[in-house]
């Protein structure tokens, strides 16, 4: 149970009870039980935050259910603090939202009073801060549960009691956080509101006067929309990663043209060059009514000069990165997304499982890059290839290798690196002794010996 109404609370229902317990306390069949959706709550809070921009340009969210409004300089627009408070309360009431509001000189004080003071609506002046704050419980200071529990154990329940403890003792026993919160609430140290800035989705829209059957026109408009979007993205130093055209046809159907890019890109010519073929495949027997372009995902790109000619010298690292992304986009467009993929390292000792693949447009990167200083062959064979090897038993390096029907001497061998393979997954593979070996014909191969059978395999090769 995450929340309940006042009437339920009057019957003894408390947050944290099980549903069955709560229902039995109410003793009625007429109980509305709704699922708890923190994500939706957050979205609703953000919407309320946007609504609150009526009152002040600086609005911050205070999850799960609070809003922080910095009204400094705005209150006179609403006839002073008190009338602004009344207005806010009335507006929220009209939205059927029960509210607790406090206007106070400090953020800490406002939060403490709004959440813990007996009266729902308060206006605290500068002189009243200490007086109002001291009877409130310590949890009003936004401290963690551990500190609150520790304080409760030694019989400290209100902010006033905390304030009476010498500051040095407080810092020594509870760390700086408690002291910092107390000072912030009393206005001794400054605290700022982190404003919530709603981001408008980047999209462009064009409505044709009537159904357009000439696809060249549709293509032209699509290009125009893309031009607008790229300009807007460039102004924000952003590049598009996923673009989506929604094309409405006269017969009420719609088609979607979606393009993912390997790297965030703001090069109009390039984006159009990968999008263009998709438009050529577009069919609209009844004509197109409207077209809408939306940036589904974007990313920051460093500002760069747009080259005048395509074959200008590529200089900075950012340029190389961009050129690389464009190359991959073009390859994916020519050969299909299925054949162009990226490799991702996996943290394991088993060479066969040490990497996996991901789509080239996926931004997921290696985490922590394990096994960094280990030399692994550039080409790992799908299946280890059996070889006949002459070596000193039990763990000496190879001296002569017969592999793929030919015999080689060994010029250089390094190892062994012994890998004991996972014992937790069946079938359990025997341990392997890996050697890096240079054969007399100059090839570098990765050989291993299975510990129990003593058989040799070639597992990879340095190209």
């Amino acid at each position, binding site marked *: 149970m995450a929340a309940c109404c006042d009437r339920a609370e009057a019957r003894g229902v408390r947050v944290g009870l099980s549903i069955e317990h709560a229902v039995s306390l109410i003793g009625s069949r007429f109980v509305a039980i709704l699922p708890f959706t923190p994500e939706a709550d957050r979205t609703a809070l953000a919407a309320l935050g946007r609504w609150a921009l009526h009152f002040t340009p600086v609005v911050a969210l205070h999850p799960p259910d609070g809003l922080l409004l910095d009204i400094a300089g705005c209150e006179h627009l609403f006839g002073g603090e008190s009338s602004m408070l009344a207005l806010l309360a009335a507006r929220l009431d009209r939205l059927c939202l029960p509210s607790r509001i406090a206007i106070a000189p400090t953020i800490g004080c406002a939060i403490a009073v709004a959440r813990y003071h007996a009266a729902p609506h308060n206006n605290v002046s500068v002189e009243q801060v200490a007086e109002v704050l001291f009877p409130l419980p310590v949890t009003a200071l936004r401290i963690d549960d551990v500190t609150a529990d520790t304080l409760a154990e030694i019989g400290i329940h209100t902010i006033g009691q905390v304030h009476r403890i010498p500051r040095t003792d407080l810092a020594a026993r509870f760390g700086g956080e408690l002291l910092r919160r107390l000072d912030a609430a009393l206005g001794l140290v400054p605290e700022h509101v982190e404003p919530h800035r709603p981001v408008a989705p980047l999209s462009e829209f064009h409505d044709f006067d009537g159904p357009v059957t000439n696809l060249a026109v549709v293509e032209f408009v699509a290009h125009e929309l893309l031009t607008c979007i790229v300009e807007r993205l460039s102004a924000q130093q952003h590049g598009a990663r996923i673009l989506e055209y929604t094309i409405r046809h006269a017969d009420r159907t719609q088609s979607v043209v979606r393009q993912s890019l390997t790297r965030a890109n703001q090069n109009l010519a390039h984006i159009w060059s990968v999008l263009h073929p998709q438009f050529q495949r577009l069919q609209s027997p009844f004509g197109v009514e409207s077209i809408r372009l939306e940036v589904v995902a974007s990313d920051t790109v460093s500002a760069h000069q747009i080259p005048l000619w395509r074959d200008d010298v590529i200089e900075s690292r950012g340029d190389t990165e961009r050129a690389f992304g464009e190359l991959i986009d073009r390859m994916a467009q020519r050969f299909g997304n299925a054949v162009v993929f990226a490799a991702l390292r996996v943290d*394991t000792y088993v060479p066969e499982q040490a990497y996996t693949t991901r789509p080239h447009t996926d931004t997921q990167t290696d985490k922590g890059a394990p096994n960094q200083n280990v*030399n692994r062959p550039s080409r790992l064979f799908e299946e280890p290839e059996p070889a006949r090897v002459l070596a000193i038993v039990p763990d000496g390096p190879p001296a002569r290798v017969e592999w793929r029907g030919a015999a080689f001497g060994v010029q250089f061998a*390094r190892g062994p*690196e*012994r890998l004991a393979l996972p*014992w*937790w997954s069946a079938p359990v593979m025997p*341990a392997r002794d890996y050697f890096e070996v240079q054969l007399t014909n100059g090839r570098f191969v990765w050989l291993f010996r299975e510990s129990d059978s003593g058989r040799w395999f070639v597992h990879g090769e340095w190209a």
Partner: protein
Amino acid sequence: MPDAPNPKARMHPSHTSGDESAHPRTLADTPYAELAVTTNFTFLRGASHPEEYVQRAAELGYRAIAITDHNTLGGVVRAHITAKELRIPLVVGARLILQSRDWFSLLVFPTNRDAYGRLCRLLTLGKRRAAKGDCLLTLEDVVAHSAELLVVIVPNAALPALIPNELGRLRDVFDDDRLSMAITRLFEPDEVDRNATLAAWADAASIPLVAVNDAHYHDPSRRLLQDVLTCIRHGCTIHEAGSRLFRNGERYLKPAAELRRQAVRRVPCGAASKSPSARPDFISTNCAMNIRAKSVRTDLLPCSISKRSPGKAFASDSPKELAASCSIRFTTNCA
């Protein structure tokens, strides 16, 4: 904690001429004592009890067995009880993990009762500074408490480039008579080259080498348990653990002959030797001597010292004298 025990009151089995069947001469020929032993008193790292190590060491005919838990002497008591029963010399010690020195840890072995007391005080100092279960020690603290301690540097996997300087400094601090450097043969990648580099650096700083196997369990079958402990330590499942586990299951008490074979063949003393020959000469008398040198170092450890020459040989703080008395003891014991 009581004074260090004295299992040497009776001769070690390998020194008696009688019972040849239990301890064949071949084992006695390859004196080995494992100096890096992590027991389950190093929480979530060691996977065997101290008793199990001691028992296995006795079975394998080790000259001695050390117990070196991370920043603690906790495992020593139970090891001592078993060691006394089995009449195998126990080397009391600890492995110190130091702050801001992450390329190595130190194995420290007190040589007498006073040094043992100092080591205990050092550990208390470190533990008082840190939260429970942790220990916060710096190299300076160790130096301040290091009189009559034998110190072995155990280099970690990652070796920064400035090691030669650091080694020189360590040698100045601890004096070469008390300092040695551990070389492992755990079948890690590039271990041969790494050991060659380490040996060359140690040689340049004239620090003798000792072979250790960094035991984390007494029997290879305990690798499973050790892997699981590692997972618990990192709070992950065994499928996610990946490179946080050990690469292989070599960190157990191996037969001395096996270790000797690996060490003599592979610890690349070729690089450490003065010869400028480019061909790495794996077989070197240097190495064998180093293994023997280690047995010197274990023979003089507290158990044997306290009774035979009660405090006398070590009345002086001079490490030179200490070393001199050690080598004498070595000749009288083993010659």
